[in-house]
């Protein structure tokens, strides 16, 4: 849609601007303040310069947490996106069964994050959980509270359980917008199922899939509650992701300086990646409108 040039539109945006400034910019400035200063309480600050940043950049703790975070986000994207597309391709069309599937599939998305953790805690425990008990009965040595590998597998299965539906719903919405004429033309050309998917369905889903990947990447990159409830970052440090490490440092140990420096760098990484996705998205929009 072509839009009118009108700078008075700023007045309409002003409430949002003020509100978000209050809840985002002000706190962020506090973080910046902590990042460059040292404090012993009573609001006395000593200039620290880039000291905290140097400390955090060279700390193994941060490197490990970042490595685990990237591995985690990578694995769940690799599983959830193809699985989500596969589910969407198999979903029934409109009508009762379509709505039925939609509602049931969306159910995990609406469960509070900590309850998701609780569900899997109860489900996975060896003594009371169906999953833990079942695996033990099959003779598999499974215990997510002691074994790092088991903890990882449980977290990944939990995330796939929780969020695959989101990718599936988005892909489904993309599929619904493809006109039937495309499929008819493909049938006349005797296209195989694979080439229908590759040349008709996939390009049409590109936009929504980009959003799906963006949302999943961002949310998994700041995942906090589910691992916090399920494993508490353990066993050891094996499931301590960036957010958990940060919250531990800031609200647990009150290491404000390092935590603030950590926050700022964390935020910059997110900012950079958001920017890449956003540019890709707006370019896609422009191409479609041409």
């Amino acid at each position, binding site marked *: 849609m072509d839009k009118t040039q009108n700078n008075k539109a700023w007045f309409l945006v002003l409430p949002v601007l003020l509100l978000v400034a209050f809840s985002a910019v002000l706190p962020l400035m506090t973080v910046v303040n902590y990042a460059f200063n040292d404090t012993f309480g009573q609001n006395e600050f000593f200039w620290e310069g880039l000291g905290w940043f140097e400390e955090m950049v060279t700390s193994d703790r941060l490197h490990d947490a970042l490595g685990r975070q990237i591995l985690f986000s990578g694995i769940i994207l690799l599983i959830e996106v193809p699985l989500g597309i596969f*589910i969407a391709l198999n979903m029934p069309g409109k009508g009762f069964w379509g*709505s039925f599937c939609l509602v049931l599939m969306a159910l995990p998305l609406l469960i509070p994050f900590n309850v998701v953790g609780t569900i899997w805690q109860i489900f996975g425990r060896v003594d009371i959980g169906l999953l833990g008990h079942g695996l033990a009965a099959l003779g598999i040595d499974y215990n997510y509270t002691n074994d790092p590998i088991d903890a990882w597998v449980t977290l990944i299965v939990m995330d796939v359980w929780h969020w695959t539906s989101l990718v599936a719903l*988005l892909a489904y919405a993309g599929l619904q917008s493809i006109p039937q004429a495309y499929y008819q033309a493909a049938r006349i050309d005797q296209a195989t199922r694979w080439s229908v998917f590759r040349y008709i369905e996939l390009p049409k889903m590109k936009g929504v899939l980009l959003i799906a990947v963006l949302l999943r990447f961002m949310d998994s990159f700041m995942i906090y509650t589910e691992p916090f409830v399920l494993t508490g970052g353990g066993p050891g440090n094996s499931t301590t992701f960036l957010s958990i490490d940060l919250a531990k440092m800031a609200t647990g140990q009150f290491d404000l300086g390092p935590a603030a420096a950590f926050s700022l760098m964390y935020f910059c990484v997110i900012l950079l990646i958001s920017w890449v996705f956003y540019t890709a998205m707006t370019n896609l929009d422009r191409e479609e409108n041409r």
Partner: protein
Amino acid sequence: MRSKSSTIVMAVYILCLLIPIYWLINMSLKTNSEITSTFSLWPQTFTLQNYVTILTDPSWYMGYVNSLIYVTMNVVISLTVALPAAYAFSRYNFMGDKHLFFWLLTNRMAPPAVFALPFFQLYSSVGLFDTHIAIALAHCLFNVPLAVWILEGFMRGVPKEIDETAYIDGYSFPKFFVKIFMPLIASGIGVAAFFCFMFSWVELLLSRTLATVNAKSIAATMTRTVSASGMDWGVLAAAGVLTIVPGALVIYFVRNYIAKGFALGRV
């Protein structure tokens, strides 16, 4: 047209989604001694005691009340400020609009862990700590950008000619907006409200940091169920089931728009 294999795939998938939820419900209907002593696929001694505990103990049910209060406040605030902004983004080009839009997006993507501590200090210093409005405002951090995005997507679908016709007919802007435009995007407003509700409802970190007693949310209450006799699994499970109920109820009303909402109105 749909083949048999599709039905099987869907059935298996939905079954996998439902089994953990079933297990939670199963646990909530058992007594604690049964949970720890015997393993069974369904409750042997059926009991509603866990639910009774929650609904009669103020420290439990006030959690739900507090959560509902701040979630409602958050939805109202978010929508009120997001509606005009979304209209501006969907209709006008103005200086810095692209940058502003991107800046809003980054707030949706900002990890709450980064903001937890500054929020705590900011709200303590202005005397808002442990109040409902503090949590509602804090949740605006990610809900306002989300609401703007969703609403902008829906508003794009309304042709601009409608605005112009209304102005020619002598409507003032506020009157046009409330009387003509808002009914046109009613479904969009519903979806945005639903998403704000949902993300505020499921959030734990900020609500736990910003409240201790008076505005303590159900999510925070649930993280402290370790009693002297070990974990109170039955009550924990029952509390979990009760948190799913509101979501399950509202999802039915927006079932046809869920995907569009998740795609930020951009399908």
